[in-house]
């Protein structure tokens, strides 16, 4: 079985971020690039399924990112993925969700898979729309927010979180799934994993390999980013020392009353 996991490379979610309104871009100085957190969970799910299935099951990570970020992908290999594919091309720069999904789906058709695991949400784009768009372009069934997965008789038995509870569903193979954060905490790369990752291959793909009919990149995108501004500054408000519970409660009550919140 061939499991492919999509991994986006994103600015460190834990860094305080600042936007430069003139370039509409994030100020990257001092902000590291890391694996998108949701995709680490997706990779963890893939590695667990591989361990369970055994045999000749492999895990390939796939990313669309500038070539210069190639080494960041090694972390996924250090966690245990067998190999990686990196789709890079200057012509992909500025791609929106539509263009990204369109390009990635064509690349994944070439890569091939029995199971595709996509992260639920990217930290920088945060549309959560990529999985659905990929599944649709790949004409492959989609099951999102999976917290438990079992493969039996060539079928996927999945437990997935919904807005109001959970569902048990059965899906054929190949399918596209996304993982919920409850699937399991991503593992740390072991020292052995880190050493081993240096020898694993990261295959390169470019636009020429895809044979796309429609333009991608900024020109082909269906949305245009008009502005990116820092939010209105939320200043430090009042700080009130409460001598006892009653006094603290009164301070809050008065404040809420003033703002017509009670």
């Amino acid at each position, binding site marked *: 079985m061939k499991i492919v996991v999509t991994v986006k490379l994103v600015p460190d979610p834990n860094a305080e*971020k600042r936007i430069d309104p003139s370039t*509409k871009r994030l100020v990257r100085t001092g902000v590291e690039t890391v694996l998108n957190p949701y995709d680490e969970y997706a990779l963890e799910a893939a590695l667990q399924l591989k361990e369970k299935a055994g045999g000749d099951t492999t895990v390939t990570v796939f990313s669309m990112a500038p070539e210069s970020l190639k080494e960041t992908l090694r972390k996924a290999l250090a966690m245990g993925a067998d190999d990686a594919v990196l789709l890079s091309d200057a012509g992909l720069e500025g791609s929106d969700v*539509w263009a990204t999904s369109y390009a990635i789906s064509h690349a994944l058709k070439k890569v091939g898979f029995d199971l595709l695991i996509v992260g639920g949400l990217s930290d920088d784009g945060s549309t959560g729309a990529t999985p659905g768009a990929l599944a649709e372009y790949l004409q492959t069934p989609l099951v999102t927010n999976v917290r438990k997965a079992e493969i039996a008789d060539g079928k996927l038995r999945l437990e997935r979180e919904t*807005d109001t*509870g959970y*569902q048990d569903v059965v899906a054929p193979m190949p399918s596209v799934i996304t993982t919920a954060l409850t699937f399991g905490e991503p593992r740390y790369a072991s020292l052995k994993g880190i050493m081993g990752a240096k020898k694993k291959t990261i295959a390169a793909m470019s636009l020429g390999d895809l044979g796309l009919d429609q333009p991608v990149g900024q020109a082909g995108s269906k*949305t245009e980013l008009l502005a990116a*501004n820092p939010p209105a500054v939320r200043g430090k408000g009042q700080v009130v020392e409460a001598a006892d*519970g009653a006094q603290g409660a009164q301070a809050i009550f008065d404040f809420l009353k003033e703002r017509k919140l009670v």
Partner: protein
Amino acid sequence: MQNVLVYVQHKGGQTPKVTFEMATKARELADKLGGKAHAVVVGKGSTQLAEQLKAYPLDVIHVNDDADVDTFLLDPVIDYIAGAAKAIGPSLVLVPNTLTGKDVAGRLVARLNAGICADATDFKIEGGRVEAVMPKMGGAAITTCALRSGDYGVVTIRPNAFAAAAGGAGAAVQPIEKPAGGSYAVTIENDVEEGTGELALEEAPVVVAGGRGLGGPDPFDTLLKPLAKELGGTVGASRAAADAGWVPYSLQIGQTGKTVSPNLYIAVGISGAIQHKVGMRSSGTIVAINKDGQAPISEFSDLTVVGDAFAIVPELTKLIAASKS
């Protein structure tokens, strides 16, 4: 892009509040674009829900009680919406920014070759072009994204961002035909509602959130719940509280949890780590109750009361209760 089409997410006729917020906004957008406001409601209980929706200013509500929607995962829904969208031509499709909504939006992006702007909290219409305003990167940037007028556009709507207001002349409720040739791949074997009877976190106008400072699971029930109830809100938590097993992960707010923007957010025993902040910083008013006057949360709270939560919260609950009678 003149017409607006709303996807109505529901289960057995039960729909989240954001549906009514979208129906209200759809009217305004359709008027500005010079088109009509449509909604698609499919699955068991749709007819009954359409009656309720009629109170909102839509033009046409397309309805089918098709039980396949409840048996097969999402495929039938996508066929219905795409069918309705194609029938009315390049349009603006509004979808709630919920788990299901994200799936619907993503699939429509490919099915309709559409642009998408996600998690919108505001709109502008400039020269017939739709622009959506969205906080990104945990609120570190407020972005404006424009959709191409000649194409379909999908916008996911953040719950609680727009007001819901009944009104209008009453929509026409029309049956929508089942699209032919659908192939439904994923079957739902078991569908469990875990309705706690509480408001959904993302939709609650008031969130009272607890953190490690509460020291255990009980204060969530005995301290926070009564306060939330008095304020007409619900209870949330920091990751530290969820990790400790004091509350389910579904209550976690922050980078790896839910994003909320209630009118009022009360943080009790929460230090205000960046990963927590990104999930709540767009709240209307933020009040912190913390033992430590130097806690980072005080840097972005409108009011920080320095003191013991166990002493303050019950008194506050009493004050609010008393003010009502």
